[in-house]
């Protein structure tokens, strides 16, 4: 019981501290949900050159994302020469591995990719709390049961942070945004060395 209370205190203090730390004030949310527009157009093939740094290894490839239905996406990663390394389907909270090469077929890796990509592509999320400061807003929401903060500047989503113990564990930054396409995306894990940089190669 005591442990539960301490955890609860940490949770409350932890959750409150992130918006406060960045100078945000709590406001009454005017809507019930928040949108991530970056992978929401089914007519667009979202194709990115990807550079992945994991521990001391760097490698590249092509990351392809496609919206296939109201809450359904397909994400595939190939080498520059075209060999598919993995191919996943996401539908609401359903996740399917269509293909993964043997060298990458590790449960821990697949779990990380599942969580990261779900946060990256999830289009509509229920607003739990909202905070504001001059022209910027911070929105608390939950993805796969984990607290995430959407950070918007002038109405444009620029960052998603997955929280853990009150601090960002994984940060997704969107930049060079044009016509609801984020031409640059950076996904950074804070608790171990993994960075995925995406540069759009969309016609």
């Amino acid at each position, binding site marked *: 019981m005591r442990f539960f209370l301490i955890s609860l205190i940490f949770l409350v203090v932890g959750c409150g501290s992130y918006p406060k730390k960045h100078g945000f004030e709590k406001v009454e949310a005017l809507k019930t949900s928040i949108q991530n527009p970056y992978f929401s157009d089914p007519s667009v093939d979202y194709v990115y050159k990807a550079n992945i740094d994991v521990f001391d290894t*760097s490698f590249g490839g*092509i990351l*392809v994302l496609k919206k296939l239905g109201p809450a359904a996406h*397909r994400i595939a990663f190939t080498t*520059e*020469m075209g060999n598919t390394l993995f191919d996943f389907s996401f539908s609401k909270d359903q996740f399917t591995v269509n293909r993964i090469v043997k060298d990458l077929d590790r449960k821990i890796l697949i779990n990380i990719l599942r969580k990261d990509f779900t946060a990256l592509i999830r289009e509509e999320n229920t607003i739990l709390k909202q905070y504001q400061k001059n022209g910027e807003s911070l929105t608390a929401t939950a993805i796969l049961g984990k607290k995430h903060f959407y950070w918007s500047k002038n109405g444009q989503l620029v960052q998603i942070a997955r929280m853990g113990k009150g601090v960002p564990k994984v940060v997704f930054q969107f930049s060079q945004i044009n016509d609801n396409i984020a031409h640059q995306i950076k996904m950074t894990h804070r608790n171990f060395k993994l960075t995925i940089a995406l540069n759009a190669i969309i016609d």
Partner: protein
Amino acid sequence: MRSRFFSFLLGGPKRLYALGLLSYLFFSGTLLLAQVPMTNAEATALRSKVKDQAKATRTISSDFIQHKHLDFLSNDIESKGTLAFKAPNIVKWEYTTPFSYAVLFKDEKLYINDNGSKSDMDLGSNKVFKQLNQLITASIRGDMFDDSAFEIRYFFEKENSLVHFMPKDQQFAAFIKAFHIRFNATGEVEAVKMIEPSDDYTQIVFSNRKQNQPIPDAVFSH
């Protein structure tokens, strides 16, 4: 007998069957009709022509266009670049659009230059990559007619030849189900298609091919 067969197909209400049969042949059979299987003698002649061509090849430089087909995408992903080959087994693929990326197979190693960021990989430790390198080298030269490693099928496609190579090695087949290589009338490789187990594929079409022209060593440095 034949006229009775046709009159049976075309007579009265049976005409629909004939239309059905014809459209079936038209839609499902066009690709098959375009690819006429070779006889054993024709396949042997192609093998020796391509092998002679490969033996006489000291260098190749060529432009290429690559199309990556993923079934769920609206359009194929197109990339372009240049290829340089030096006998016996140095190969460099350099992608220039829409990104800058070069991969060099040399001395049992794979050297990568990803937009200025350089890395390398020892091929000796990776069986699949080693095989892939051997295959790429062999497929550029056209000389990959190894019956112990592939189930091979030969076709004519108009004036060109098309050869299907299905890897026999299970580990390799899990990576690439088949290679289709198209040769022109003189036995040079015009296009390579790598088909994955999912039927998604990568097609590389060569153009502006120059054979046995000197290539500066700097092209193959890392």
